[in-house]
């Protein structure tokens, strides 16, 4: 029973969420699609800037652990910004806006946004 995957009896009565498996409610934001793409995420990113920077830092640390010379992050910072020009509108402009508001290098915001394609192997 304790060997992975640990399996338990079907839970009941968990709702409304509470207890040790509930870590909090999720905050609501509005994104106005009438705004220019570069402005749409400004409120979200202003609120979550510190958390975004912390998450990106973890990815930097992981990348530097794999390639201690720092060359992998150099490639992300120097080459991935070139990719943003090829991404479809309005996603490219939204990504630029997020980088501008958060102060996170553009290449690292691009990497976060293409994580899925990178990690499907």
């Amino acid at each position: 029973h304790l060997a992975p995957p640990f399996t338990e009896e079907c839970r009941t009565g968990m709702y409304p969420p509470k207890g040790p498996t509930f870590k909090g409610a999720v905050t609501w934001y509005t994104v106005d699609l009438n705004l220019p793409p570069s402005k749409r995420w400004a409120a979200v990113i202003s609120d979550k800037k510190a958390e975004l920077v912390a998450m990106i830092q973890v990815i930097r640390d992981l990348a530097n652990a794999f390639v201690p010379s720092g060359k992998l992050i150099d490639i992300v910072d120097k080459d991935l910004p070139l990719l943003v020009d090829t991404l479809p509108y309005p996603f490219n402009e939204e990504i630029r806006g997020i980088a501008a508001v958060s102060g996170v290098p553009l290449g690292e915001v691009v990497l976060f946004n293409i994580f899925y394609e990178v990690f499907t192997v």
Partner: protein
Amino acid sequence: CTSVVAEDSKGSLFHARNLDFGLFMGWDVKNKTWIVTEKLRPLVVNVDFRRNNQTVFKSTNFAGYVGMLTGIRPHVFTLTMNERFSLDGGYIGILEWILGQRDGMWMSFLTRSVLENATSYEEAKKLLSQTKLLAPAYFILGGNQTGQGCVITRSRTLSLDIWELDHSLGRWYVLETNYDHWKEPLFVDDRRTPAMKCMNQTTQANISPKTLYDVLSTKPVLNKLTTYTTLMDVSTGLLEAYLRDCPDPCSPW
């Protein structure tokens, strides 16, 4: 990830998911947690996408990520996406993109486009099954009418399978983790069997967003990679999301 679309005895459709992410991306030995998963949780937000002051769609998202993994077009359809691993993975699609072959779509941009533009379950199904992608994926789609629910298994170029609700076969729910539904899951990562056991135990008569939360709270469906649980009801337009934790004893994936 675990996604499920279920229809109750009255024909109402509910859609729920656990978003699991961060496998092998740094293990915190002291706290017994995945480092990236822990950093992703504070980034989870619900977003109401509005045009002309009216809701177009709603989603559970990571701040800074412009694509969609979980969303609802109220009264029309619900959509989640689960990761599908393959040697013919997204890195090949990225390489092709860099080399100038740009006829494929980035997965999360497609889901966002579908939520933003598709105006029916059938249109969403067509776009998700026929658009060329950069990476393989599972799309889990729910509609607003009886029998409208499916799992679309995608390779980068093809729709490999569309697995639908089917009353004639007694299939009142479709449930997807991260394995093709016609194959056995990896034996050390079988979240499908416990999830289906709990769905069957719940029964169609008692299925609701609340009981789906119970199913998604059962370990190992809930595991150390689970960042959030989202519950959706297409008929009311409800989207609720909750941050999750999985204290020991708990499966690492």
